[in-house]
């Protein structure tokens, strides 16, 4: 069957006329019926546990599993080296191809051995009974120290990667009237999806069925099939419901392979669920960064040059997935003839990092937008006006127009409008009932920040199937995922629109490699722009088939017929035949279509943008920052389903709030250990931290991106929030934050420290 494509579309209906139906998986989630990987219970299922290194770096001299293996209820104990495949080759993991259960451990939490037992308690006791002898080696857990070191003892473990992006000249200092120099630091942030990484693996008939809490069922399928030398069709991966991902579940982790190995060893299903400590130290993080930024501008504020030296901590191993690139915003957000970004990605003896909601962009947007804000302050101009002065309608790297050249300007307009930017810009001098003023103990401030994002266009190929059932209901499927982002709902909306049908009569299956055709990993805010056009194409083709079949039956022209809520109707809207009747007439024929998104447009540069205004109150006595309001205008192209987008916006805003104020993994560098590997000492935002969040909807269709005009939303609402909050704090207290999170301690230090954090040279 040929995959259908879409014609170009025109403007959509007003946003108020769009979807008014609720999240389609709402009812199973509010009743507790939604089955997550951790909930899978199979007959004979064993529980797994993992022995992790207590040392940040050590040689594993000996692993004695005899006591553990002989414990009653213990069914298997595995440790290194692990051999797989017909030629018994050593299994390796990570981009560095380290041996699975390596004889060198490189972070506290690195896997050494694993156990399968009849229950979780027995598995834990068995882990405790494994006797390991270590030769402890020196470690480096501090990004600053790692950045200083040229290389480590083991040759392969020095700087992981050095990248340089450049356009124009590096000798622009003489052309600049103003040069600002600053150094910015961002912390390690932990994803903390509430469902931990989890997997239930079962070998059946020489093949594998794996329930995995993942953002990419196809990537798990291919990784496992390749590792265990199986045809792809012998590996079925299911993730119908996923308890959050945020990037941490976008790559196949070792945990999945451990469950598969234990299931192979025991011949029984094995469940492996990480505990919250493992989730904190060994299941991904946003790596720490340090950025030194030099910015040059003319006296009126036109950018002349940007020179950036960045360091990113990748942790002990490189996981793959979306890379953490700091260069994007510097290269793209503003018109600037000379830009150089040098980035070193360094290893440390800490858990591996992996993409976290806009990896690299949240961090570099904080630095860049702090510098732009400082430039506005230095020359005494309005922060939004300064950005408009440096506006670009083109991607200066690729010399291509943006797919939606006015999108960022529209974001500026929308946040300015919703925040009353023009009239309330002096919010810091206003006095409110609680006594907050610009001179008292409580200071108010307002900050602005803009952003762009690397992806958000399509990540083809994405395929979908759709079928008309004999009762007139519609079944559709795709092996995409819904990790809580509302994929099921938004795509159901797309089908309902194309078929002019009640969404309640549509069932879309996602999260099962055996029931739907291939789709990409849910990452990079690419699911909607890839899959919505695919589902729309499938539905359009199904509609064509329906109307042709009806035309044949009715002896009329298909051009005169259309669909209306389960019926084929004529030009006057009169019912000619119902879909069940039509299906009965044409039986045994069925109507089934395939749709796909196979390409991206290469004559434009597809990027989404956004802007944020933050209002804060800073208690100069305690250093406490309270964010009172966030106004967020993300450019996701056409808004498909307003409620799903709204939920992404408030969710992204709140994760940005956490990164700005409280979230920071703390490592004792002497011991090389994380001291807050839990949800008690690592502070994610709670209900009590909640600001007023306003979604200033942009809803500007980007038809140059794809025929539906849709771009992704997931990552956008988070990106500029920390920068906007930091700029608001600078506005409130007149001192420039250069390090996140803005904990009370850091704010007090900032208030006490009279040295300028940004060097200004005119």
């Amino acid at each position, binding site marked *: 069957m040929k995959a259908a494509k879409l014609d170009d579309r025109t403007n959509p209906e007003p946003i108020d006329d769009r979807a008014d139906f609720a*999240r389609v998986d709402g009812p199973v989630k509010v*009743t507790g019926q939604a089955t997550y990987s951790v909930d899978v219970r199979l007959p004979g299922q064993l529980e797994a546990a993992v022995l992790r290194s207590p040392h940040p770096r050590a040689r594993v001299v000996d692993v004695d599993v005899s006591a553990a293996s002989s414990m009653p209820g213990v069914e298997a104990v595995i440790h290194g080296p692990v051999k797989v495949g017909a030629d018994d080759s050593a299994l390796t993991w990570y981009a560095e191809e380290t041996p699975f259960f390596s004889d060198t451990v490189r972070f506290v939490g690195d896997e050494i051995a694993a156990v399968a037992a009849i229950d979780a308690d027995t598995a834990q006791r068995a882990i405790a009974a494994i006797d390991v002898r270590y030769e402890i080696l020196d470690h480096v857990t501090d990004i600053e120290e790692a950045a200083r070191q040229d290389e480590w003892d083991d040759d392969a473990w020095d700087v992981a990667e050095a990248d340089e992006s450049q356009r124009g000249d590096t000798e622009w200092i003489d052309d600049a009237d103003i040069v600002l120099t600053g150094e910015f630091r961002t912390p390690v942030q932990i994803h903390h999806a509430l469902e*931990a990484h989890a997997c239930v693996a079962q070998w059946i008939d020489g093949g594998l069925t794996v329930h995995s809490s993942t953002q990419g069922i196809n990537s798990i399928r291919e990784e496992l099939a390749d590792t265990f030398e199986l045809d792809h069709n012998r590996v079925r991966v299911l993730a119908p419901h996923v308890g959050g991902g945020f990037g941490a579940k976008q790559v196949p982790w070792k945990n999945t392979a451990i469950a598969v190995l234990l299931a192979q060893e025991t011949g029984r299903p094995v469940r492996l669920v990480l505990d919250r400590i493992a989730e904190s130290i060994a299941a991904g993080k946003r790596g720490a960064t340090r950025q030194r930024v030099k910015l040059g501008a003319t006296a009126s504020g036109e950018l002349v040059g940007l020179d950036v030296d960045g360091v990113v901590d990748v942790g002990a191993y490189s996981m793959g997935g979306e890379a953490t690139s700091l260069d994007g915003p510097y290269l793209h957000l503003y018109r600037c003839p000379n830009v150089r970004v040098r980035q070193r990605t360094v290893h440390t003896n800490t858990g591996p990092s992996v993409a976290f909601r806009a990896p690299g962009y949240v961090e570099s947007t904080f630095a860049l937008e702090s510098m732009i804000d400082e430039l506005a302050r230095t020359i005494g101009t309005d922060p939004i006006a300064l950005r408009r002065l440096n506006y670009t309608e083109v991607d200066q790297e690729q010399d291509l127009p943006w797919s939606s050249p006015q999108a960022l300007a529209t974001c500026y307009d929308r946040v300015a409008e919703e925040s009353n930017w023009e009239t309330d810009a002096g919010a810091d001098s206003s006095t409110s009932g609680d006594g907050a003023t610009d001179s008292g103990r409580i200071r108010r401030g307002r900050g602005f920040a803009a952003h762009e994002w690397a992806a958000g266009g399509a990540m083809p190929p994405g395929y979908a199937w759709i079928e008309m059932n004999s009762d007139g209901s519609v079944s559709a499927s795709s092996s995409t995922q819904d990790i*809580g982002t509302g994929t099921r709902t938004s795509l159901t909306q797309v089908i309902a629109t194309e078929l002019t049908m009640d969404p309640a009569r549509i069932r879309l299956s996602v999260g099962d490699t055996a029931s739907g055709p291939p789709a990409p990993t849910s990452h990079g805010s690419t699911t909607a722009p890839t899959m919505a056009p695919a589902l729309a194409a499938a539905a359009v083709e199904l509609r064509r088939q329906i109307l042709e079949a009806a035309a044949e039956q009715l002896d009329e022209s298909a051009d005169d017929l259309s669909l209306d809520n389960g019926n084929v109707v004529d030009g006057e809207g009169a019912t000619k035949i119902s879909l069940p009747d039509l299906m009965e007439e044409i039986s045994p024929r069925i109507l089934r279509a395939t749709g796909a998104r196979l390409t991206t447009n290469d004559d434009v540069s597809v990027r989404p943008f956004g802007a944020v205004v933050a209002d804060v109150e800073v208690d100069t006595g305690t250093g406490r920052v309270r964010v009172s309001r966030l106004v967020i205008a993300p450019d996701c192209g056409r808004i498909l389903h307003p409620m799903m987008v709204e939920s992404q916006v408030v*969710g992204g805003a709140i994760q940005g709030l956490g990164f700005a104020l409280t979230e920071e993994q703390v490592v004792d560098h002497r011991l090389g250990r994380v001291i807050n590997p839990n949800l008690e000492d690592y502070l994610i*935002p709670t209900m009590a931290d909640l600001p007023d969040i306003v979604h200033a909807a942009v809803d500007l269709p980007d038809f140059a991106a794809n025929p539906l005009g849709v771009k992704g939303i997931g990552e956008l609402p988070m990106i500029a929030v920390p920068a906007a909050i930091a700029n608001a704090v600078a506005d409130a207290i007149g001192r420039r934050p250069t390090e996140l999170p803005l904990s009370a301690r850091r704010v007090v230090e900032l208030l006490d420290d009279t040295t300028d954090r940004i060097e200004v040279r005119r």
Partner: protein
Amino acid sequence: MSTNRTDLKPQQLLVEITVNGNPRSLGVAPTTSLLDVVRDRLDLTGTKSVCEMGNCGACTVLLDDMAVYSCLVLAPECDQRSVDTVESLTDSGELSDLQNAFVDCDGLQCGFCTSGQLMSLEALRRGERSVDRLAIVEAVSGNLCRCGAYPHIISAAERALAPDLDEPAPAVTR
């Protein structure tokens, strides 16, 4: 499921708990948590396990109509008491007002914290306290949501539990 005293394994205690209206007799180790009983012994997997140390609220259930973190309650403490989980909220398959409001206001995303949020609010509904915005925020202040559905959770709770509040439900907490 029913366990008699004579069926107990060594070091097990017999506990009798009314779970979602059904009397249950179970032999449990003294250290068994209520969470493990609910999820692993009774297969009521709507209750979620996340931190297992009372930080996140995902495992919230009602113990004699009071919201508790089931990971911090030992099963033997529940002897002769009544436990309600998210599975009890529907009535003959019909969603409760609170559940309907969560669906309508999109008070959830990934759904993993949802049963805990619902049970904290169900305790508020069953309690004596008059329900206003502050009461709602306090009721769920011990329930973490990593997706950030908080504003929609407040809206949902107001719609179901305090429909007479005059102002609509923006995401303001203090």
